[in-house]
């Protein structure tokens, strides 16, 4: 039920909507719950609504941590 996935914002539309790319499929979602979204941002999509912007720097940090953990 809490299933949510990262999607890339392709185009900003009227009425707090955006066109996103979902593994090659283009679909319209609502941005009513998130401010300052720009084209190219990744958002966490849940039941048709963006819940938050994904932080690319933090994502990199987590991936780096995997690498560091593995060197121990």
């Amino acid at each position: 039920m809490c299933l949510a996935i990262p999607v890339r914002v392709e185009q900003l539309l009227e009425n707090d909507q955006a066109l996103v790319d979902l593994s090659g499929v283009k679909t319209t979602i609502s941005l009513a719950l998130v401010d300052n979204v720009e084209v190219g941002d990744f958002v966490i999509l849940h039941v048709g609504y963006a819940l938050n912007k994904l932080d690319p720097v933090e994502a990199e940090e987590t991936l780096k941590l995997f690498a560091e953990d593995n060197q121990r």
Partner: protein
Amino acid sequence: MKYVNEFRDGKKAEQLAKLIATEAKPEREYRLMEFCGGHTHTIFRYGIDDLLPSNIKMLHGPGCPVCVLPMKRIDAAIELALSPNNILCSYGDMLRIPGRARMSLQKAKSKGADVRMIYSPAEVITIAENEPDKKIIFFAVGFETTTPPTAVVLDQAIKSGLKNLFVFCNHVLTPPAITGILEPAKQKNITLLDGLIGPGHVSVVTGTLPYEKLANTYQTPITITGFEPLDILQSIYMLIKQINAGTCRVENQYTRAVNIQGNTKAQALMSKYFELRDSFEWRGLGEMPYSAIKIKSKYAHLDAEKHFTLVERTGTDNKACECPAVLTGQKSPTACKLFNNPCTPENPLGSCMVSSEGACAAYYTYRRNIKIKNVDSTNNQLRSANKHAS
């Protein structure tokens, strides 16, 4: 898929599993609970528990909204759906949950009720606009993740002056459910869990702050965790390290999506439209104070519970159904007599078999053959014991 595939790397998973095995002390047991049904699903789908040493036990928590909704709420939704002038809309999983007398929303639909499966609550607005002569009821369920979209629906209904849209609110809260699991154990002075894999997408909305008090009160480390296999393995590693060090902090593994404050815009919208219920019944956990929300009385004209007269019926679950024990981590799905025969995802008798996030459905999808093997070997042992006895 970016931000997904990188977190599913098999080699890295193996290496993380090795690290966990090195960190875990062989002389003790580690009991970890994943709260979310989404985590349960990932653990089974990717066989994460098979990668762990045998002294790390994964318990499955109540974080599956479909699973914890008591039968009387399903019955109320069925009753609303059966009324000829109504259209009842809900998420796919809700349609198959068994209600009283083996009825479900899906069966109500086959009897002619207008039940619509929706993917997004935004569809409810369109349906209400297209069907002005009907009463549209949104059967809203879910934790804090799913509540903000429902708040948007209420907001839009008011802004567009829709008079035929009602929300049947069944939204529940995560922290009281964690309390519901940990408090009885604390009262009895037993340690049910050594660590908790905390909700990821709930925390996107709530932030990590609400868990601080829980970690402190119940002296249990909590790691807010993402939903990919590497996220879960890293979270287990973080928890084992905390348990070994004897600390009980809230840590955030899912930093790419979760921060301390959460989504404040979503929180503001939720506080605008919802308030705490004094009490709400959960399947498995019983009545719990302040564990769910309802629509504020100011917006009563949008509240299905206020607009329609709902007769509360007390349907009883199948007596052999172990969903309550499964939801509180006390029993494994395979310990239920109904598991696999006759309870299956196609013909669910209990709610945990309905949603793919339910522990029973996860065992059925990924482990039922193992169960059959176990049963066979137990049966063989029984048969041979009987033979010797005779």
